[in-house]
């Protein structure tokens, strides 16, 4: 049975699209047939991060309006055989996304894919609502700062009250916490919330912690999802996230400050 997973946060700029790209790539690298959908109609970014912006001909709105078939709009990823991208439209406005149309697309995708990853726009308007409405599971992306945590709390409230599963009284949407842009050094100095602080407020299971890293920006600019970077903490952290999502029991990494050279030499902790 195909699973619909929404990547959401409420606040903008916390790493939803970066996460959608790396998470869907990670699922595909493990042999799962995966499609990632950009719901940010009007501000499409996912195609840039996946490095397929020059191959976008049709988009999700064309499919909803019945102008083209789903097959025509899906773009095959350049790095993974099992991964497809359904881009957002840049020229239409958000109201073109309607629930009936999205449901039709998801039902069709469910026939041939294992995982459907929905990259939600920021905010709590109709775009974000449409992206989360059909979700079976949710990745709530949060930065270690109060306003981001507050917005995630709001999104969790909406998920538990207004998603299709909530409205129809089915088993609730399974929630996962993903803390991104985490800098243990700044956490220790008190400038950032710790993972424990965030969990204390949100109280949902932690799926992973992605460390703050320069390499994310480089990856975005070069159109390669961060999970493909070599010798990178971020790539490893995303692989751990995918592993945990698939049910593996992996220890949390990157939540403690890296020991400096001298500290290691002198046997400090």
């Amino acid at each position, binding site marked *: 049975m195909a699973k619909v997973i929404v990547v959401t946060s409420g606040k903008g700029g916390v790493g939803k699209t970066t996460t959608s790209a790396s998470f869907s790539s990670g699922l595909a690298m493990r042999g799962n047939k995966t499609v990632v959908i950009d719901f940010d109609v009007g501000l499409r970014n996912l195609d840039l991060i996946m490095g397929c912006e020059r191959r976008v001909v049709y988009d999700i709105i064309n499919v909803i309006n019945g102008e083209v078939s789903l097959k025509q709009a899906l773009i095959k990823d350049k790095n993974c055989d099992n991964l497809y991208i359904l881009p957002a439209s840049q020229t239409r406005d958000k109201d073109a996304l309607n629930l009936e149309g999205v449901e039709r697309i998801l039902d069709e995708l469910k026939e041939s894919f294992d995982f459907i990853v929905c990259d939600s726009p920021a905010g709590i308007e109709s775009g974000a609502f449409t992206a989360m409405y059909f979700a079976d599971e949710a990745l709530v992306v949060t930065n270690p700062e109060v306003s981001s945590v*507050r917005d995630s*709390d*709001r999104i*969790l*409230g909406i998920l*538990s009250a207004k998603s299709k599963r909530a409205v129809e009284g089915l088993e609730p949407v399974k929630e996962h916490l993903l803390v991104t842009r985490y800098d243990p050094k700044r956490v220790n100095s008190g400038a950032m919330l710790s993972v424990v602080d965030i969990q204390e*407020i949100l109280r949902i299971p932690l799926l992973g912690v992605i460390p703050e890293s320069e390499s994310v920006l480089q990856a975005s600019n070069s159109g390669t999802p961060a999970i493909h970077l070599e010798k990178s903490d971020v790539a490893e952290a995303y692989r751990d996230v995918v592993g945990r999502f698939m049910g593996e029991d992996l220890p949390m990494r990157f939540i403690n400050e890296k020991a400096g050279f001298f500290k290691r030499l002198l046997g400090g902790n």
Partner: protein
Amino acid sequence: MTREEPAFKIKTGNLSVLQLHILTTDMVQLKQELAQRLSQTPDFFASTPIVLELSAIAESDAVLDIAELVSFMLKQGMCAAGVVGGSVGQREDAIQAGLGLFPDVVARSPLRGATEEAFSVTGIHAAVVPVQPDLPGLDVVSASADKELVAPQIKPVPRPTMVIDKPVRTGQRIYAEGANLVVLAIVNAGAELIADGDIHVYAPMRGKAIAGAQGNEAACIFVHGMEAELLSIAGCFKVFEDGIPENVRAKPARVHLEGSRLVIQPLNY
């Protein structure tokens, strides 16, 4: 008279009455402040019967010129109907002045001290017990007379307590209409709990709690971890700009009204 029907009936009636809580024995100050308050809302009382609440000054056993006070009130459009509380001497003076005695049913804490204000009308609804769904056990300030004469009226069945077992998150509002509210999960900042009766939270409480929303001054708030943004009982509210007092912060606490003062007590056991 050939009528077969009796000329009168005696029945119990549960009426809502205004109470004037008298917090000082200084009649000059009391009258001055009364006149000042009434000048702001001249027609507010319009011959409404008012019960003088004397429990705050009972211990002083001061002799009040109640007859003089009654005639002063009448000039201001306030129609004194009786007294509740007060010392034996004060109650005798009240009978002399032609007032009725209400049974002293209002349970008051002995801790109660005189406040700076001469009497307590915080906003319009503070001391008003409006016509509301009768909650047996909660309407302790309703004035009822001649209980023995007639069989007690059948009271409406109280609404069952509303129990919430999921987190109440930012932006969510829960209203227990005519009932008590029990929350078994976390209440986050930006969430709102409203109940016409009591509120219990058996988890950290970081949002707003509004108990006795229809004016029930006997309503209470019980919280397992006091971190609230706002607390309110019967219209008297408190915010915590400088943080929650140390002795209750993040600890179990009980909140109740003493006069117009919202009291937060630690729950030690």
